């Protein structure tokens, strides 16, 4: 698994069950998209439950939302969008044969991902300091304490699962950056990178919605 790979056949890494490289690429891409469909339903269950409770307790959920730090949330959104941008450029570089640049862009992606998590955990720490962790330490003087707790349960569950997805993503990005540095990908063969990119962008999309439902509705209060 090094630059010693020479012949095209070797570079294509064609596995025995496939007939052609094109079939292999399509198979990997389709598989990744179907996996993302399962992710839609996974997060979808939480989004649905959130929507039902939000309809029931608009005030309580807005009061919860008002506690969020819009500054950190917005910065984090920008950071994640930037990481997606870097990821898209990394794949573009790989596809156009600029392998060195691709490695650096992948590392940038991973770095931005880590920055996102760092900011996210800063926020978690602030919630903990403010005694806003349901089940562990929760205090409020607001009238809709129950609904507010529910808001925080969903907040921690959904952003927590998102953070877990980010962690998996960052690990994979670093591994793929190392593989790219070792010369595993070129303009002909970089299917695994494309699949990873799909995953990364999807996690970005999830965050875009999380940002919209958790940070915005309490801003005006």
């Amino acid at each position, binding site marked *: 698994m090094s630059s010693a790979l020479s012949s095209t*056949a*070797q570079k294509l*890494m*064609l*596995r*025995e*069950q*496939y*007939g052609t490289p094109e*079939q292999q690429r*399509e*198979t990997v891409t*389709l*598989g990744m998209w*179907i*996996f993302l*469909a*399962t*992710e*839609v*339903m*996974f*997060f*979808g*269950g*939480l989004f*649905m*439950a959130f929507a*039902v*409770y939000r309809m*029931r*307790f608009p005030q*309580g959920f807005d009061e919860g939302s008002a506690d969020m730090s819009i500054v950190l949330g917005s910065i984090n959104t920008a950071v994640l969008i930037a990481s997606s941008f870097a990821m898209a450029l990394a794949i573009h570089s790989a596809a156009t044969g600029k392998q060195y640049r691709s490695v650096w862009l992948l590392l940038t992606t991973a770095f931005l991902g880590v920055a996102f998590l760092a900011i996210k955990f800063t926020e978690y720490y602030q919630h903990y300091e403010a005694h806003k962790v*349901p*089940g*562990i330490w929760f205090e409020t003087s607001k009238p809709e304490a*129950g*609904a507010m*707790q*529910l808001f925080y*349960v969903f907040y921690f*569950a959904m952003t927590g699962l998102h953070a877990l997805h980010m962690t998996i993503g960052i690990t994979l990005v670093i591994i793929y950056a190392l593989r790219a540095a070792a010369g595993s990908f070129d303009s002909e063969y970089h299917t695994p990178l494309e699949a990873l990119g799909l995953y990364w962008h999807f996690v970005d999309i999830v965050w875009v919605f999380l940002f919209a439902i958790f940070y915005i509705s309490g801003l005006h209060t």
Partner: protein
Amino acid sequence: MSTLVKIPAAETPNYLTEGRGIRSWLLTTDHKRIALLYLASVTVFFFIGGIFALLMRLELVTPASDLVSPHTYNELFSMHGIIMVWFFLIPSIPNTLGNFLIPMMIGAKDLAYPKINLASWYVFMLGGTITLYSMFRGGVDTGWTFYTPFSTIYSNTYVVGAALGIFVSGFASIMTGLNFIVTIHNMRAPGMTWFRLPLFIWSHYATSIIFVLATPVLAVTLLMVAVERIFQVGIFSSELGGDPVLFQHMFWFYSHPAVYIMVLPGMAVVSELVAAFSRKTIFGYTFVAFASVSIAVIGFLVWGHHMFVAGTSIYAAMYFSLLSYVVAVPSAIKVFNWTATVYKGSISWDTPMLYAIGFIGLFTIGGMTGLFLAALGIDVHVTDTYFVVAHFHYIMVGGTIMAFLGGIHYWWPKISGRMYPEGISKLSALTVFLGFNLTFFPQFVLGYLGMPRRYAAYPPEFQSLHVLSTAGATILGAGYLMPLIYLFWSWHYGPPAPPNPWRATGLEWQTSSPPPKQNFEITPVVTRKAYDYEGMKDELGLV
């Protein structure tokens, strides 16, 4: 493991002999071997679940709860449900027969992702082990449905452990579904167009859609139950204003389609059996194919019929009831088409055909009683009674397990390279059929009389019917043990099987029995539709 393009050697040993030793099995990526790993595992789970069922039936011989304590009884039916649903019925046909046959039927060398296929078995076993571990540590008494707030607040058993096991095994389902969909899309042999596919493939495709889209919702629901139970924050209970009925919505969004995960592969098998043993193409092939897909799709719209008395709105109940009737239509179409296929066929009475006919009969009764449960007013009385218990056992045991056994017999020559003994297998098919009806038909009457389900003790006037049911269960148990024994026997001592003992169509019969590791010496080129018995006749020179 990144092998290069490889041309199979001229005389390859078959998949059972190529590579020996435990390592070659545990690290195999051959879909056929993984199918056998799954077969062994689900068989073990089936008998564990069966023992729980038998203990329950013995307890119910007398009205009082005297054989086991009520708490033990509650754990028995919970563990029976959990094991049978997630560790037997759901993987039963797709992961054994489906895994074995899908690549062969479409003329592929393997599934699209062989490593993910193997990983799915390990994940499945991990989930099963966690569940069994929490069962033997102290069990779980919530029923397989985990209704909140009982499961999150009031139960004192290992709920989180059992839920975790199911959560983990869900990933195996997702991997399998994903693998099947991609395989069926991208790995078909040249000439294998969508409408030349065997109906087995169509049904498994429909099943895979459900695997992929429903399972994640169960995963996230169980995760929320675990969070609620561990941190005591009421997501699905009322202290913070949450709604227990929301859990039921999310649970049944998975679990109703999961019923179709269980029965669609059964329908897949039966379509093959009816065609092969009638030597006729399936009447209305396209209708049966699209019926599978529409069952999968409409099956997602009907979950609320489990909740007609749960405190949902009456208007929601209305649309869920209507949609439940709509999903009954494609099931009816399938039954009618199978029956019409038999008409003017050339019917053999081999064991698989007996199972197939048993399937159609029992599935019809199960489906028809589903119409009762979908009728809103009727459901008010019969829901949560033995009527429901009988109904879903007719579908899952009378349907799926009959089809599973029929399929195992039909493809046994291909799987093992040996023929099973015909006489005793006919006897076992008959025993299963009779035992099944004796076990579960009285339960319809019990439910109609108002006997609630999940009762360790019951009023004495229900005793006669319970005794009948238990008697049936022992016969059924014997019926299930027979194939286990004689199939094991035939693995070594059965007469060697020819490549196509039934003179059936289908690519799987065109390769040797057992097939080589790569399935086919040369990738087949398909020029005919499925079930082309006209062509088969020509091929055999019987014009």
